[in-house]
């Protein structure tokens, strides 16, 4: 028994669960995450699943994985490499082994390492028996047969019994890290409320896995990761898509208006629709349209009617919506477009992350067509920035892009919940009367926004549309000078949004040799890399952008205080292009010029940056 059990304390652990798409790895990872969050650890997760619904069982394309880092100290990424790899079959081992740290622990479902599976995964000999795993600690556990034994006498069919083995694996990892089973037991009870035999079987498998850890002598120690030292407050676990949905719900609260959420299912944005469609009592109407165009059109129609129109998609859908977005630019109506970016071009990598739609959001329309762009940088700040997108849209009567990405959307972290009273209301006013004929294109002097007069208001009947408008009256106009003036006004209006933005902040010294400038989902890796280097005494600072158009007013000043601006992006240089365009690539302070010297670090692998990749790049420039 466990009389010789040693408990060791660790700062943080990164664990990856990997198996066949049908093995329930996402669910297992989610449960491990929930429990770790509830036990007070800091967490960051990285789900990674194939685009195929279910590739043939046991094959390499069918491998699905879920990585979580949980920690006593504050963390910003799901970890560069797993310390522990739990694999359910030979294919999962083959796909994931290269990522495991040397000396790390691999826990394998030894039952699945039979000839047929080994062949499917392309192993020439059994890696559990040859030298493949010589650099790692290996724990072979016959998950399948132990689960079968534990569930002897269960009413479940044999194939159903086998599907409980992920809970056995979860139970074992819960034991290894001293996790409580309570949350998962409660979750199983709710999930299978209508099938008590499944509740019983899954709980039994979970407990059997836990007890196996307790009694097996192959596990001499268990590890304790104490509660994280993070800011006091009330926390919950949140993914980017959940936070985005909650932000949209908050919009109804902050504006006092209904939201019409028009969308067409697309990975990785669909979960926002799933979440919102459950929340009809929060005054969010969801509309699953016939296509991306109609989804955007419906949102714009709602906005014309005086409600909050939001549409969501991923890059391929933005292509389709672009004409409608341009109509919103021309008609000067509020519209929020959520683009949960994925690998492109075309269908690209539907389930993998990328941040290559920035220039599409910026320029992907005909004519001079400026729009505002904001981006989330962590799962939890999606909440704040989707609210910001709505604020800008209604204050400036303009379409606003909200950019997230597959990584932010699906990964989770603890979120220090805002106090409801601290959320700023968004004031919207619609004109009620007009002295003389109503002029729909007379602008607010400060914001240049036109009045948002809505149908149903007597006396303000007016017509708008996609044809160029006459200044002030809004009548159809082909006058050459009017077109020039209106084009300038539309541009100036977007520029003036900068008046309403907070200044950018710098992490570290305010001037020096290198500033790492990031945007969107690269926040965690950049922040961690720069913090580590700063602790080592290296002269490097960081700055992260959530406002991509317009830039915050002090950005130029910040950038010009550094010799080199390093811009790591999961694209081939979207922000780099904008920075060079805005702040002149010619010269740079290093050569005595006025401009900014910016260089890119660009990797598009469908995965978020690792901390070490950013570190190495910075170090190469120091």
């Amino acid at each position, binding site marked *: 028994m466990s009389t010789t059990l040693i408990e060791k304390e660790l700062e943080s652990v990164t664990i990856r669960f990997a198996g066949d798409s049908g093995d329930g790895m996402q669910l297992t990872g989610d449960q491990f995450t929930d429990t770790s969050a509830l036990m007070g650890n800091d967490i960051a997760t990285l789900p990674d699943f194939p685009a195929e619904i279910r590739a043939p069982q046991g094959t390499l394309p069918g491998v699905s994985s879920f990585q979580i880092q949980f920690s006593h100290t504050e963390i910003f990424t799901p970890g560069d490499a797993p310390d522990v790899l739990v694999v359910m079959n030979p294919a999962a081992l083959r796909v994931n082994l290269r990522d495991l740290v040397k000396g790390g622990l691999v826990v394998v479902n030894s039952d699945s390492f039979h000839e047929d599976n080994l062949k499917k995964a392309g192993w020439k000999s059994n890696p559990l028996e040859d030298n493949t795993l010589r650099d790692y600690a290996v724990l072979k556990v016959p998950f399948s047969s132990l689960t079968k034994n534990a569930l002897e006498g269960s009413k479940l069919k044999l194939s159903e019994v086998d599907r409980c083995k992920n809970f056995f694996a979860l139970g074992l990892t819960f034991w290894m890290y001293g996790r409580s089973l309570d949350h998962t037991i409660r979750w199983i009870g709710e999930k299978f409320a209508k099938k008590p035999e499944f509740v019983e079987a899954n709980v039994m498998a979970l407990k059997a896995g836990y007890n196996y850890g307790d009694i097996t002598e192959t596990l001499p120690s268990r590890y304790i990761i104490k509660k994280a030292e993070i800011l006091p407050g009330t926390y919950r676990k949140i993914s980017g898509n959940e936070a985005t949905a909650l932000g949209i719900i908050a919009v109804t609260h902050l504006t006092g208006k209904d939201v019409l959420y028009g969308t067409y299912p697309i990975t990785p944005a669909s979960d926002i629709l799933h979440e919102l469609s459950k929340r009809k009592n*929060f*005054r969010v109407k969801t*509309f699953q349209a016939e296509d991306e165009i109609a989804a955007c059109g419906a949102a714009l129609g709602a906005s014309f*009617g005086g409600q909050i129109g939001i549409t969501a998609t991923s890059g391929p859908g933005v292509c389709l919506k672009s004409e409608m977005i341009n109509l919103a630019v021309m008609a000067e109506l509020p519209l929020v477009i959520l683009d949960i970016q994925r690998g492109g071009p075309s269908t690209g990598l539907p389930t993998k992350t990328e941040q290559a739609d920035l220039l599409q959001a910026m320029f992907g329309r005909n004519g001079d067509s400026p729009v505002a762009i904001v981006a989330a940088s962590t799962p939890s700040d999606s909440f704040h920035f989707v609210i910001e997108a709505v604020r800008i849209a209604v204050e400036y009567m303009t379409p606003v892009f909200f950019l997230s990405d597959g990584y932010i959307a699906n990964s989770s972290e603890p979120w220090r919940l805002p106090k409801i009273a601290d959320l700023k209301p968004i004031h919207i006013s619609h004109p009620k009367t007009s002295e003389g004929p109503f002029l729909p294109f007379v602008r607010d002097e400060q914001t240049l926004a036109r009045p948002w007069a809505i*149908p149903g208001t007597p006396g303000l009947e007016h017509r708008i*549309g996609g044809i160029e408008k006459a200044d002030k009256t809004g009548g159809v106009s082909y006058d050459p000078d009017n077109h020039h003036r209106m084009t300038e006004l539309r541009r100036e209006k977007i520029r003036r949004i900068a008046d309403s933005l907070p200044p950018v902040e710098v992490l570290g010294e305010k001037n020096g040799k290198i500033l790492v400038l990031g945007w969107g989902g690269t926040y965690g890796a950049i922040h961690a890399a720069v913090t580590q280097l700063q602790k080592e005494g290296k002269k490097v600072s960081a700055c992260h952008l959530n406002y991509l158009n317009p830039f915050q007013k002090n950005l130029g000043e910040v950038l010009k205080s550094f010799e080199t601006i390093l811009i790591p992006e999961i694209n081939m240089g979207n922000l780099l292009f904008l920075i060079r365009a805005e702040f002149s690539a010619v010269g740079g302070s290093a050569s005595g010029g006025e401009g900014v010297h910016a260089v890119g670090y660009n990797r598009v692998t469908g995965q978020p940056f690792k901390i070490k990749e950013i570190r190495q790049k910075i170090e190469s420039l120091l």
Partner: protein
Amino acid sequence: MSVVPSASPTASPFHYTKDDFVSGQDVRWCPGCGDYAILSVMQKTLADTTKTARENHVFISGIGCSSRFPYYMNTYGFHTIHGRAPAIATGLKCARPDLTVWVVTGDGDGLSIGGNHLIHCLRRNVDLNILLVNNKIYGLTKGQYSPTSEKGKVTKSTPYGSIDYPINPLCIAIAAEATFIARTVDSDPRHMGQTLAKAAAHKGVSFVEIYQNCIIFNKDTFQDVTGREHREDRALYLEHGKPLIFGKEKNKGIRSDGFKTEIVDLSEDEEHKDLLIHNENDPSPNYAYLLTQMEYPEMPVPFGVFRSIEKPTYDEMMEEQVKAVIEKKGLGRLEEILYTEDIWKVGELVPSGGGGKK
């Protein structure tokens, strides 16, 4: 022509005149364009019959000659982009069910570039009034064939004749099971006015095909059917509850074996016992479909209301679903959805690690 509608919409409670619906913007269609008649009839019909205050009318259009319509109506209006008016109108109606929303589209806008939206808006039964102004040609782009042009049509883009089989707008509408389907013609203001008034009175999606004469690029394309000299023999005016009879002498009728229609000479069958009796409320779409298949020259072309049935509307059901969930769960409070049961607290005693999460 002397057609009395079976259910004539009653007079408007407002004391509008036609001028109340005239925006004052210069109308810029070609002289002699059928759109003038449609605009004028619309303004007059609303003044006479609308139950909705002017400020609650919204006209939404796409791109094309007829899509300039909203600019000329003194109501709220949105001239949008090619083919997408039904989508924008759907969003508007869902957000604002209190409004009366009109969609003005054409054969190119509605059936070519925007065919998808039209079908889905019809099958959802969104409470919109859709006018499809069909002139069987692309006018705004100056004379290419359209999806309703007859096969073999010689145009700028088809100098050797088009090889497309044409689409039948009402057939599309019936396939999508639209709840109100009608056809009228620009040269018959009285019939058009009655048809528009009925479309407006219908709860649910109303789809009206209006034969329109493009005087520049497709002059007289409907003349063979709607021309004064022979329309009584080539057009069939539908009246609810009455047998399908046409002809100058009222001497021809329509009967059907359930699969197709045929003409009966009434001078030989004076009892009319097997003639089709027009039932616009037939819940099955089959009968209305048979009517859509009646095309010149084999058959007379039907005008009037093909179908008018009641079905819950999309916007109404969306509204009801929201209400039902609020009734069941109570109006959602932000507090309760942020602060769920899965929260945990981190106390003041724990030293801050350096700023916490971003």
